[in-house]
C-alpha cells in the first residue's frame, strides 16, 4: 500500500472511531440527563460535569501525548512522530476550547461567576496556553524539517514544565484559599454517577483517538501531495 492509501485508510478508520465516540457521547448525554440522579447541592447544572471533566481529561492527555511524541521524534527523527504530535496538539487545543467553554457554563450557576483563579483552572489554563504557543510556533516555520525539530524541542520542554506549573499554582493557591465554598465534585461519588463519569471518560478518550487519526491522516495526505508537487525524487 502506498503512503497515500495508508493515510486514506487511517482517515476512514478514524472517521469510524469518531462516529462511534459521538454515538457514545449521545448515550452519555441521555444517561446523564435522564438516568443519573440530580446532585443534591448543585442541582441540574452539575450534569455538565459529566462532559466537562472527561473533555478536560482528554485535552490534557492530548498534550501529554504531544510531549511524549516530541521526545520520540527527537530520538528517532521519524516524521510520523512529528505529524502525530502536531495532530494531538491540535485536537487537544480544540478539546481545550470545549473545556474552557463548558467550564464557565457550569461555573456560573454553581459558583456565581464564570471564572475563578483557583488552582485547577489556573494550571489548566496555563497548560492550554503553552500548547497554543506550540501551534503558533509551528505556524511560524515554513520548512518542515525545521518545524519538526523546533516544535519537538518545545514539546519536550512543555512536557517537563507541566508538573512545575501544577506545583507552583497549587502551592500558590493553598496559601491564598478561595473564598468560594462550592467544590466541583464531592470527595466520593455514588456508584451511578461514577459509572456515568467513567463511561464519559472512555467515550471522550475514544473521541480524542478518532479525531487524532483523522487529523494525522490529513497531515500525511498533505505531505504526500506536497511531495508530488515538488517533482521528481532522487534515483
Amino acid at each position, binding site marked *: 500500500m502506498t503512503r497515500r492509501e495508508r493515510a486514506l485508510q487511517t482517515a476512514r478508520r478514524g472517521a469510524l472511531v469518531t462516529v462511534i465516540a459521538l454515538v457514545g457521547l449521545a448515550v452519555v448525554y441521555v444517561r446523564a440527563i435522564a438516568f443519573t440522579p440530580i446532585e443534591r447541592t448543585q442541582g441540574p447544572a452539575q450534569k455538565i460535569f459529566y462532559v466537562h471533566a472527561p473533555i478536560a481529561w482528554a485535552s490534557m492527555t492530548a498534550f501529554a501525548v504531544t510531549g511524549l511524541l516530541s521526545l520520540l521524534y527527537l530520538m528517532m527523527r521519524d516524521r510520523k512522530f512529528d505529524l502525530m504530535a502536531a495532530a494531538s496538539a491540535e485536537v487537544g487545543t480544540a478539546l481545550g476550547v470545549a473545556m474552557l467553554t463548558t467550564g464557565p457554563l457550569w461555573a456560573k450557576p454553581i459558583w456565581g461567576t464564570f471564572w475563578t483563579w483557583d488552582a485547577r483552572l489556573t494550571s489548566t489554563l*496555563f497548560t492550554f496556553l503553552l500548547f497554543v*504557543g506550540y501551534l*503558533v510556533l509551528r505556524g*511560524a516555520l515554513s520548512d518542515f524539517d525545521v518545524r519538526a525539530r523546533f516544535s519537538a524541542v*518545545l514539546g*519536550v*520542554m512543555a512536557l517537563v514544565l507541566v508538573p512545575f506549573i501544577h506545583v*507552583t499554582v497549587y502551592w500558590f493557591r493553598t496559601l491564598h484559599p478561595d473564598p468560594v465554598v462550592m467544590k466541583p465534585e464531592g470527595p466520593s461519588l455514588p456508584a451511578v454517577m461514577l459509572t456515568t463519569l467513567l463511561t464519559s471518560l472512555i467515550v471522550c478518550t475514544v473521541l480524542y483517538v478518532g479525531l487524532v487519526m483523522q487529523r494525522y491522516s490529513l497531515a500525511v495526505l498533505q505531505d504526500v501531495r506536497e511531495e508530488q508537487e515538488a517533482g521528481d525524487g532522487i534515483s
Partner: protein
Amino acid sequence: MAGDLLRTTAAVARKDLKVEWRTKTAFMSSLVFAVLVLAVLYFARDKTSVGDFDIAPGALWVTFTFAGMLGLNRAFLLERENRALDGLRLSPVTPTALFLGKVIGNLVFLGVVELVSLPLFILFYDVPIWRQLPILLAVVALATVGYVAVGTLLSAMVVRTRFSEVMLPVLLLPFLVPPIVSAVQLTWRILALRPLSEMTGWLSLLAAFDIIFFTLSLLLFEAILVE
C-alpha cells in the same frame, strides 16, 4: 576537553559583550524600559486599596520579566547578521559551549539591568531592604538563571521566525510561571522579614526548576543548531 569548553565559552561570551558594548542599543532600551515600568506601576497604584508593601514584589518581577525579554533575542539575532552562526559552527565551538556563552552574555545583560533597577525599586517603594540584601540578591540570581536558560533556548528558535519579538513572550511566559511566582513569593517574604523556614519550599522549587531546565535547555540546544 574541559579546557576547550572553557576557552570557547569564554570567547563567545566576551565577543557578545564586546559587540553589545559597542552598540548598546538593546541594553539601553531594556534599561529605560525597566525604569519606566517601575515608575508607571508605582504611580498607577491605588494607595487606598493595597499597600506598597504588597504590591512591591509583583512590580519588581513584572519589571524584570519584561525588561529581560527585550534583551534575550539580541544574542541570536547577532549571529544572523552575515551568517555569523555558520562561522561559529565551522569552528571548534560545540553546541554546549555556544549555549553557555550565550547564557553568560544574557546573564550579564539582565544582571546589569537588574542591578540598576534594584536601587530604584528600593527608592520608590521605600522597602526595608538592607539587612535582607544578600538573600534578595540570591533569589534574584536564582530566578534569573532559570529565566535566562529557557529564554536563551527559545530565542534561538524564535529568531528564525518573522515576528520574533512577539513569539518569544508567547512561548516563554508559561515557562516563567514557576520561577517568577516563586521569586515573587520569596521577595514578599524577604521584605516582610519572615524566617527562612517559610521560604524553603519556594526556594526548593526555584532551585529544582533551575537545575532541571538549565540541563534540559543545554541538552536540547544541539537539536536546534544542527540542520
